């Protein structure tokens, strides 16, 4: 609390660019946003590339998009400035910014993030185990036993 610069607000922004956009062009956008974060005395905590994904519905007639996710802190209008820049870019289809914390703590965020990732990994492992179990079961008894469960859920 002593020095005011320590506590900045934290945000996460995800934006979707056109799948055909070249890597270089995407890089320039990312660099530009990085520069803005610097201008607003913030810190770019994380910049992640999710790669090209199929969109759940077409945006501007595109069915695929390239996702970029970044976490940063900054003061005042940083979100305004970043979103303004994203809006200027023709190749940005969509963006979403979420306020993570009014007083952002980088270390805390990192620990939380690793916790979430580990949890996801554990769940993935569980799912894998269950799938194998089911596969083993199917191999076990060949006759189909899936008929009777259908009646209960419908109505």
């Amino acid at each position, binding site marked *: 609390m002593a020095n005011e610069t320590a506590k900045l607000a934290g945000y996460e922004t995800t934006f*979707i660019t056109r799948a055909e956009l070249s890597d270089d062009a995407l890089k320039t956008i990312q660099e530009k946003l990085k520069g803005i974060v610097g201008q607003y005395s913030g810190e770019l905590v994380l910049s992640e590339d999710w790669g090209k994904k199929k969109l759940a519905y077409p945006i501007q007639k595109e069915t695929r998009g390239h996702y970029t996710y970044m976490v940063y802190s900054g003061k005042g209008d940083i979100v305004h400035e970043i979103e303004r820049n994203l809006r200027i870019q023709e190749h940005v289809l969509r963006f979403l910014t979420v306020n993570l914390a009014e007083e952002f703590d980088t270390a805390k965020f990192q620990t939380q993030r690793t916790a979430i990732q580990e949890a996801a990994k554990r769940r993935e492992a569980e799912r894998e185990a269950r799938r194998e179990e089911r596969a083993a079961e199917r191999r076990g008894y060949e006759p189909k036993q899936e008929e009777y469960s259908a009646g*209960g859920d419908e109505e």
Partner: protein
Amino acid sequence: MAIIKSSDSGVKSADRGAPRGDRGDRGDRGGRDDRDGGFDKEGDGGRRGGGGGGFHRKKVCRFCSDQDFIMDYKDQRMMQSFVTEHGKIVPRRISGNCAKHQRHLTTDVKRARNLALVGFVSSGADYR
């Protein structure tokens, strides 16, 4: 639960007087309760099975019971598991989520929709 409590307080007030009226009240409540129970059976169907041989399974909020199950709008697979094939958010009475987590979930699904991770409600017609 609330009905039992109110009848308890009714017993306390009965010490002061008018025990008959109180009993009458209780009888009324009981009657209403029965009717509610009947309505529930009809409404839920799957819960009691309606005599169809189904069984009651208590649903627990997955976010409450499993600490590893952390809500995240960026997790496409998780979001899709709480959405019907038409893109509707699965209601609480089906998914079994608690009120708090269902509230957070709706905002998260809506965020995911904005990012085209989850579709908006559609009639099922494919766009291709």
